[in-house]
């Protein structure tokens, strides 16, 4: 397998993996729910995105033809992920979860 | 005509589908559909019995894939007999149910048909996993039926019934996993052959598979200590459902007979679980008798009588001689039909006693006291095995075939205890009752259905010889698994 391709594939998947991990670290480390909510968006965007770009490249090379199938995963994810984030945020506000005291503004009553 | 074998499965299946399709609630149409489909089963079953009686075993290869790769239906005398029995039981039950009980909840008729589909499938299939599937069909339908109608008691009984059977299904899957994981096949005949080629761990695992199957079938058959759920569930179910359920325990017994007869009557795992089954069956018989005596409701009492019959039957089965199996089958037919009839009778009685229902307490005389009393008397005689009805014939046959003192003792002693219980029940229901209910106001069809089921017991006694001979013929075939195996796997299959 061609070095450059292999390098690119490796690079993409590693980047993806790293961002996925960082997102999850955020999920653990950040101090209130609203902050943690920002973690997964990384996993869902760059994390998965990177990995999929890698896989795209990989299979396109393997089969010597452009393989765009996996793009759909990103697409679907981009459609659905914000919804869960939004709904969870609403739920959190409804439950009126405690937030970092230095948070500006405040949630809306549900 | 070779498709006739699958008719007992497809007729109710399609009937059920049509019933689902019927959106506008035209009750009469639904009843008609259900009754016609059930009625149709009787000639079909008779035809199949006629076919099987010749002694040849017919194999139906679904999807035209030959065994052991595809699923096969197998029509031998045993399966034919069971299918026939089911049909005979189902029709009166449904007639009874079509007099209003079917209105006490949704989808009664569809569920009833699906129940029949499952039962017949279980009797006919020659494939272990397919047996599991049909078990699930008949179970899920029975869940629906058991809960048909309203009432806390029914729901509670339903929860117990469902949960236990869900666990049972899980165990069945484990057993099947082991069966396939060792023999690499699912076809019963093929399994019977392959089991004998196993050794080492595989053999041990196959043994475990068999034992787990006994547990599962034991749960279905309601053997000690797995019958505790039955009285509440059956007693609280609506009468026609309880009557139909009289066959359900027999499905478990059939499964034991089938698998044991094929795979464990000889060969590497000969006699697997025989002795435990024998003991458990006797314990069941004894405890159930006690239950009969202690019952506080007629329905509960009948349920315990049913469990008694299960103990009686499985003991006879685990004696595993052709004679014993023949006698056992006669008794199976008798107990199924009579218990079914008694469940209906219990309901007829309850209807006439208002609040009191079928509780065994002194109260107003049931409607049609005289007639119902006579029916009860006959049913009681039959079920405890007093002459001149079928119960006596069955017990004598069993005692002759199974000359074991403890069995005789339990059979006769249990009979006596049941007699005491039933005489007390009858005394307080019909003799001590205040005022006398009029007969004319009984619902004709309901009464007819009940009478029809109870009338089988004198019939079984009068024509006892042909029936016994038939049962012995079934048993004789059962005792030669090679016939079945060769029929399924092609000549010499048993020698594979």
């Amino acid at each position, binding site marked *: 397998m061609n070095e450059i391709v292999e390098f690119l594939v490796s690079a993409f998947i590693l980047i993806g993996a790293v*961002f996925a991990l*960082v997102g999850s*670290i*955020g999920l653990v*480390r*950040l101090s*209130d729910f*609203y*902050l943690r*909510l*920002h*973690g997964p*968006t*990384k996993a869902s*965007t*760059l994390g998965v995105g990177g990995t999929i770009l890698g896989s795209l490249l990989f299979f396109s090379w393997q089969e010597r033809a452009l*393989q*765009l*199938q996996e*793009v*759909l995963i990103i*697409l679907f994810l*981009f*459609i659905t*992920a*914000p*919804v869960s*984030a*939004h709904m969870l*945020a*609403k739920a959190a*506000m409804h439950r009126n979860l405690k*937030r*970092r005291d*230095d*948070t*500006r*503004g*405040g*949630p*809306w009553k*549900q | 005509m070779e498709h006739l074998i699958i008719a007992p499965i497809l007729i109710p299946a399609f009937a059920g589908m049509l019933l689902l399709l019927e959106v506008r609630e035209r009750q009469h149409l639904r009843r008609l559909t259900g009754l016609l489909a059930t009625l149709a089963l009787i000639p079909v079953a008779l035809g199949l019995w006629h076919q099987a009686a010749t002694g040849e075993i017919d194999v139906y290869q679904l999807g035209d894939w030959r065994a052991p790769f595809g699923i096969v239906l197998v029509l031998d005398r045993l399966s034919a007999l069971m299918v026939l029995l089911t049909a005979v039981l189902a029709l009166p039950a449904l007639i009874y149910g079509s007099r209003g009980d079917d209105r006490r909840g949704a989808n009664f008729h569809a569920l009833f048909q699906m129940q029949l589909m499952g039962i017949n499938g279980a009797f006919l299939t020659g494939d272990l996993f397919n047996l599991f599937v049909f078990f699930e069909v008949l179970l899920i339908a029975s869940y629906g039926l058991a809960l048909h109608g309203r009432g806390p008691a029914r729901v509670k009984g339903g929860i117990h019934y469902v949960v236990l059977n869900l666990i049972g299904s899980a165990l069945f899957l484990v057993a099947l996993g082991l069966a396939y994981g060792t023999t690499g096949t699912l076809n019963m005949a093929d399994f019977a052959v392959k089991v004998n080629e196993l050794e080492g761990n595989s053999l041990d695992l196959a043994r475990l598979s068999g034992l787990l199957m006994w547990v599962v079938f034991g749960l279905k058959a309601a053997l000690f200590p797995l019958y505790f759920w039955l009285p509440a569930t059956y007693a609280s179910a609506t009468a026609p459902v309880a009557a139909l359920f009289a066959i359900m325990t027999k499905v478990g017994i059939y499964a034991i007979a089938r698998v044991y007869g094929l795979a464990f009557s000889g060969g590497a795992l000969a006699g697997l679980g025989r002795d435990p089954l024998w003991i458990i069956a006797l314990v069941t018989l004894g405890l159930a008798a006690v239950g009969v005596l202690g019952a506080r409701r007629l329905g509960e009492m009948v349920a315990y009588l049913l469990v008694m019959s299960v103990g009686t039957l499985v003991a006879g089965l685990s004696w595993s001689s052709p004679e014993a199996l023949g006698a056992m089958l006669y008794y199976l037919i008798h107990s199924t039909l009579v218990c079914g009839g008694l469940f209906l009778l219990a309901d007829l009685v309850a209807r006439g006693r208002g609040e009191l229902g079928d509780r065994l307490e002194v109260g107003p005389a049931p409607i049609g006291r005289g007639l119902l009393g006579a029916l009860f008397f006959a049913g009681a005689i039959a079920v405890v095995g007093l002459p001149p009805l079928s119960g006596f014939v069955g017990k004598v046959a069993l005692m002759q075939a199974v000359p074991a003192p403890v069995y005789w003792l339990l059979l006769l002693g249990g009979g006596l205890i049941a007699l005491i219980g039933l005489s007390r029940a009858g005394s307080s229901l019909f003799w001590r009752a205040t005022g006398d209910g009029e007969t004319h106001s009984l619902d004709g069809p309901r009464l007819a259905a009940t009478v029809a089921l109870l009338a089988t017991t004198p019939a079984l006694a009068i024509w006892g010889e042909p029936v016994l001979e038939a049962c012995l013929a079934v048993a004789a075939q059962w005792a030669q698994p090679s016939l079945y195996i060769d029929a399924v796997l092609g000549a010499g299959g048993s020698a594979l």
Partner: protein
Amino acid sequence: MRRLLPFPLLSLFLWATWMLLNGFSWGHAVLGLVLSVALPLGTQPFWPNVPRLRNFPKLVRFVLVVHWDILTANVAVAILIVGPPRRYRPGFVELPLDLTDEFAITLLASTISLTPGTVSADVSEDRRTLLVHALDMDDEDAMIKQIKQRYERPLKEIFEC
């Protein structure tokens, strides 16, 4: 044509998806065509009012912009999470909306959520304000301004004008 293709954008989108799924072949091109006409027709009742696409190029540009922002924002937030500890101010921002079309508003909300660092937490019942939670905002107004001109205006042009 209008009756056959109530939502051309959707149909196009579906057809593209189909082709992506199956890879190109004439057979699938035809089948995809059939489906991408049939499905929207079949599900027509499910949307009373969907805006019509006015400006396709702008849409493409918008998509690219968003992706770029996602990339950069990701890095920023990543640093914020694992990088050297520095103090940052989270907060809720109320974003007044110029968009009126519900679909467009939803797209805006999604976009905001997709770009790390901001999550759109709620839409006011009168559809006039969008509540956004930001991970780190030193300047509230700047942020509002940025969102409005970077996302909202393009969307307005794409769908409403």
